[in-house]
């Protein structure tokens, strides 16, 4: 099967990202802000329980927030 046939057959499923370009900044900013707040809360009480309750969500928020923020400012990774 030629690649052109593959393209034609896939006409019903154009790729759309989970988050559209317009919402990237809002989402990235929110996630990064929450990452900073959660990091601050972790800093108040650096216990093992805090890593689970604040550290893990802060890391996840920072991981995804950084990816969306770099896209929002025009460096599409």
């Amino acid at each position, binding site marked *: 099967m030629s690649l052109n046939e593959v*393209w034609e057959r896939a*006409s019903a499923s154009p*790729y759309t990202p989970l988050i559209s370009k317009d919402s990237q900044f809002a989402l990235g900013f929110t996630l990064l802000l929450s990452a900073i707040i959660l990091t601050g809360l972790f800093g108040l009480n650096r216990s*093992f329980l805090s*890593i689970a309750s604040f550290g893990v969500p802060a890391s996840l928020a920072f991981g995804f927030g950084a*990816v*969306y923020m770099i896209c929002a400012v025009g460096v599409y*990774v």
Partner: protein
Amino acid sequence: MRPITAFAALCGFFLSSSSLVCAQSSFKPPQTFKNVNLVRNINLEKGYARETVNVVVENVDKEPQSTYYLAFPSDVFDKVGGLEVRDRKAPEKGPLAVDALSVDTPSDVQYFAVDLPKPLAPKSQVTLGISYYLLSSLSPRPAAINQADKQYLTYSFSAYTLSAYPTVTQKTKLKLPSTNVPDYTTTSGLKSGSDPERQGTTYTYGPYDTTEVAPGTTYPITVRYEFTKPVITASLLERDLEVSHWGGNLATEERYWLRNNGSTLVNQFSRVEWTLTNFQQLPSSAIRELKYPLKPGSVDPYFIDDIGNVSTSRYRPGKPPKRDGSLELRPRYPVFGGWNYSFRIGWNNELSAFLRRVAGSESYVLKVPFIEGPRMPEGVQYEKVVVRVILPEGARNVRYETIETASNNGLPPADQITFHVSPHKTFMDTLGRTALTLTVENLSDEARDSQLLVTYDYSFWDGMRKPVTITAGLLTAFAAAWAIGNIDVSIKKR
């Protein structure tokens, strides 16, 4: 069977490209065909020559034959671009396979081998449509002019089309861009009546009865005509297409190294004279402006050269889904003959118009223009084009294809496009992105509408690599802060 010696077979073994077949310099194609009728159209309306040869070929051998050889003078051979051969009676079947025959030592004539779709029976005929363009084939005469002077180009060719086989009748039609043709060769003794016959901007040499003329005989002809337009040549075009699944974006960047191959200036450049020419909108041999159509929905264009942002550009966004955007670029200075200008432009597009997911799998298919480039009436020739498709990090099983259309798509045969897949590291990458690099020599703006298809596999977890890496990094920092905070460093009695 192609008459290539054991030496040639050995050469072919060592060559990586299947398109290049070695032959000894003494190689002569077997005289198994004759050209019953040959009509050559030469179009000089752009800054490079475009030729179309329609030829009725007859097998004069006793055996069926399947390889037809196209002859080109050696000095022209390396400038041939977008060579395509079709069966004129079945053009929809696509172009025929063409191999370039390289020689180990210089010779006057070099050949392309055309594989006919099925062997041609003795005494039967086939009509071939051969189209190609010749880069850097036009030379300015005079080579140096004043700034506001008219520019003239010359083109030299042979009245007898170079062929590996005897030709019964032939003629050449020449299409020029203007009626101002100060010099052209008039032949004598080739046919009765005046030669060439002139009709507006079309000159017809022939028809000639060349049954008795040996193949390879030449009769030099030169035309000199007005072409007060720039001869735009890109010595190199690098084109990057960057696919971002996270951003839903296709980022394009093109880097041009432009040159004007027209007449150089006799005197120093005069800004006053240039302003006058510009004010009166007179034709000029300088590159004044490049009009660059962009796909509908293109956003964020930029135009940068070695100094920085070039503010003399204008962008009119198109209306999706149909109307193209228009990017009008004015170089920092008018580019006269012999002058260079290098710059980069770039823009973004929504990925959804170019990328589709293959249903029920983790495969994606990307369809993008092979080259875009300015659309100018005088044409643009590209000596070398490097197209790099940067796929997301972790993309595997990369395959590509160029789309063949009902008419010449301006691209060379697929096996004359060299490719390699390599990692490309940039922002937020751990392994590096998968980059498919395609290199083509001798292209022109005829290839503007050609399309490139790329398929690749890319799983959900490949996409998660970036956020997971950053998450893991920060989590490590938290764990380290906790672990270090637990170390008892107080000064007390233990």
